[in-house]
């Protein structure tokens, strides 16, 4: 399946760009993270500690155990600091 993977805030800065378009067979968010870590050193560093990250699937907050069936957009980012 094809996924748009988005990065925000310091995660975006560490990876160096805001978006990847990825062809993947990952079944869960955790699988996808594992795959991203294998891409390049900066991905491995950026995703070293997922407890410092949040994930949204098709623009709804989700978690790292969630399945990716039918998902088109996955976003990773640090805890939010609005308000």
């Amino acid at each position, binding site marked *: 399946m094809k996924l748009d993977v988005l990065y925000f805030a310091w995660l975006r800065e560490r990876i160096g760009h805001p978006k990847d378009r990825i062809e993947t067979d990952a079944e869960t968010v955790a699988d996808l993270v594992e795959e991203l870590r294998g891409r390049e050193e900066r991905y491995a560093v950026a995703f070293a500690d997922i407890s410092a990250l949040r994930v949204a699937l098709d623009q709804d907050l989700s978690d790292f155990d969630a399945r990716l069936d039918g998902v088109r957009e996955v976003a990773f980012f640090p805890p939010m600091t*609005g308000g």
Partner: protein
Amino acid sequence: MPDIRVQEAVFAPGKELDAFTDVQSGAGAVVSFTGVVRDDGGNLDEMMIEHYPGMTEKALAKIAEEAETRWSLAGALVIHRYGLMRPGDQIMMVATAARHRVHAFEAAEFLMDYLKSRAPFWKQERRGGDTTWVAAKDEDEDALTRW
């Protein structure tokens, strides 16, 4: 339906408060919260807010609709800016209107608590040449447990 606006442009909280109040006939109680960039003792040059276009509007609408239902609000308003701002500038505001003051207060606090930790905004502070991403506070996450 709550009035949700995510925008780069500055806004005037007073003007928004009056416009919001005018359409809440019979509400009785209107509460507003305005967030302003603190000057941090003259240290802060700018604040930059990044957001996740699309998800931001969705998350804010969901939070505000939940508040409207839970406290039987006559209305709810959320305005949140992104982009560059300077000390003294408005960052965001919420307003709630209800028949009774306790409901208007609780709904506004609920909106603020959820918006802090559940709406996809990230603040970056700029001092001199340095940039720092503001870290989320445990107390902000903890604040959600009361609702």
